[in-house]
């Protein structure tokens, strides 16, 4: 109802062909003993074929739940999808029966999880685990499925794949297991690859390898990649566009350069400012004050308000929308970018710039 969405598409009709995945106003809640957790509260974004989108946020921001909702892997009680549409490859997938969804999962849409050791079944060989998926979706015989599994292993750079395929998950290192998960996800040549914190559980050097691998694969297979992480560095390297999530909402979105170099939402600003850089050497570490709000006790209007250095009383009364801010596709959920915040806008942006460059070089407080 404001100048928020770039080209508003009416609900109910499919997005244009080049958009592979479009999430519209998704709301997923969890009913638990102590109340309701609004894990995903009105999230929208879209992803074109062959492109990459990063979802960045702290734990509890709702990023993993978003991914699981897209795959429809949530256990329906306690989870509940309250509202929203998800369009994948021209179909709305929240309303199709689960059997139909199973045909898509692993086939057109695949997911890589965070913990490769526990995500692989310990009593079956990795070859078996890849082959069963191939057999199911591609309708091929066992022998051919096995051959394709070995192919997939080769694709992800595992040496002597035919020998490795007969091994069990515990016989491999962490990095190799993650490669296996990637191979498994790719085995049926999916159009969309969702990677949920794929490198968090790995050593730093292995992280780099895996990310490199994902990039290569993506180039080669032209599948779209939805990368979920809390690590801004990963995002900087890997994706075209990024959305930042906080407490279940999208607080900023845009291209990676726009959001990381010129953030317009205070939360994003805080994240970027807290990265230690050379310019800040000698000063104090910058942190975002306060803590992430409990999901049962969210601030009534702007959810970031209690911790925001730029807040004023409007922020306590009216929840902000996603306003256009900064670059052409960039949006930020902050009143600074609404008409009412006009007067304060520049001061905030300047302050951020100051925090980034001058820092606290001589130990003086802000």
């Amino acid at each position, binding site marked *: 109802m404001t100048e928020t969405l770039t080209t508003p598409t009416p609900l109910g009709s499919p997005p244009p062909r080049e958009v592979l995945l479009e999430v519209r106003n998704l709301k997923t809640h969890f009913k638990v003993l102590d109340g309701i957790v609004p894990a995903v509260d009105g999230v929208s974004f879209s992803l074109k074929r062959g492109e990459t989108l990063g979802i960045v946020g702290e734990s509890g921001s709702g990023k993993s739940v978003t991914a699981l909702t897209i795959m429809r892997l949530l256990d329906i009680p306690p989870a509940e999808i309250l509202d929203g549409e998800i369009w994948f490859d021209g179909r709305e997938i929240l309303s199709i029966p689960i059997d139909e969804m199973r045909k898509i999962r692993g086939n057109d849409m695949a997911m890589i999880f965070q913990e490769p050791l526990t995500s692989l079944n310990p009593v079956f060989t990795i070859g078996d685990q890849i082959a069963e998926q191939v057999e199911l979706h591609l309708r091929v015989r066992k022998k051919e499925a096995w051959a394709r599994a070995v192919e997939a292993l080769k694709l992800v750079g595992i040496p002597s794949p035919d020998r490795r395929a007969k091994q069990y998950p515990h016989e491999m290192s962490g990095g190799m297991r993650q490669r296996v998960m990637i191979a498994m996800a790719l085995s049926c040549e999916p159009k969309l690859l969702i990677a949920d914190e794929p490198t968090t559980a790995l050593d730093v050097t292995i992280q780099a390898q895996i990310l490199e691998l994902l990039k290569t694969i993506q180039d080669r297979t032209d599948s779209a990649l939805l990368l979920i992480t809390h690590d801004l560095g990963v995002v900087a390297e890997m994706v075209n566009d990024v959305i930042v999530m906080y407490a279940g909402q999208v607080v900023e979105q845009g291209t990676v350069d726009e959001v990381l170099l010129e953030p317009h939402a205070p939360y994003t600003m805080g994240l970027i400012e807290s990265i230690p850089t050379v310019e800040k050497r000698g000063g104090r570490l910058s942190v975002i004050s306060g803590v992430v709000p409990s999901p049962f*006790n969210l*601030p*009534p209007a702007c959810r970031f308000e*209690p911790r925001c250095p730029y807040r004023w009383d409007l922020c306590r009364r009216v929840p902000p929308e996603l306003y256009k801010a900064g670059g052409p596709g960039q949006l930020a959920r902050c009143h600074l970018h609404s008409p009412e915040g006009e007067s304060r806008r520049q001061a905030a942006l300047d302050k951020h710039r100051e925090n980034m460059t001058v820092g606290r070089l001589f130990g003086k407080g802000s």
Partner: protein
Amino acid sequence: MAEELRVAAETTVADLDRRAEEAGADYEVGLESLSQWQLAWRKFRKHRLALVGSVILGSFVVVALIGPIIAPFEFLNVPEPDQIVYAGRGPSLAHPFGETGGLQRDVLTLVINGARTSLFIGFSSMAIGVFIGTIVGSIAGYVGGFVDNLLMRVVDVMLSLPILFVILVFARFFGNGRGSPLLIVVIFGVFSWMGISRLVRSLFLSIREREFVEAAKAVGVRDRRIIFRHILPNAFSPIVVSASLIVAANIIGEAFISFLGFGVDPTSPTWGNILSSALTFIPVGNWWWPFFPGLAIILVVLAVNFIGDGLRDALDPRSRA
């Protein structure tokens, strides 16, 4: 000056704001932290089954303690000859649990008297077993090496024997069917410690290596203090849970050997030997005679199991309050 106010956990920030505004004051929020025991008690209270179990067990204990006073009859009472019905009589108003065959005793009285002995045997033997087990396990776990190996071999051998069988043999040979409850307690106690010793030992082994013990040692805390303040409290929970299982097992075990005639002397009734005397009267059909003592056993064992479950949940530091 500052005033301290306690509020419920569900109070929202908005509420606090409002109250502060009304009072015209400012406020600071702090968290009250409960000790481990207070937390455990709270969790236990919420566990419905455990509470039910406690009530049941509590009633049995009360009955056991004051029972013979309130029992309707003297259990050794022998009725008038013309009153005797060979098969006994079923449950009636005067005899809620019925009367036995043969000597025509009131079953309720028997069950009440039996409660005393059976519960006594169950709990005392558990105490002995836990005591021996903790000591053996601590030595094995803490000293390690050859001593540990030796002790664990002994445990292995003892666990390979069919325990009930051995207890049976011992009960027969030492007691010859006229055993005193104390003898039975000792015999059961001597055969109940193995599981606990393994538990304690493994706790010692795992905790010995854990970081907070390293930290304590680094600060210079002495060995003995380490054991008592750091290691044993962690052992408390699994030992308590094991202990509850042991009580249940021993109550059934005692009933078992008394039932076979090798346990406690029939002049002091236990639920087991009541069942034993009922056995010969099966063809006559007086089902109430073995039924009620058996029911008592089931209830007590259930109660103990429930309490054990509740304790396990309550004492687990990771479960929520």
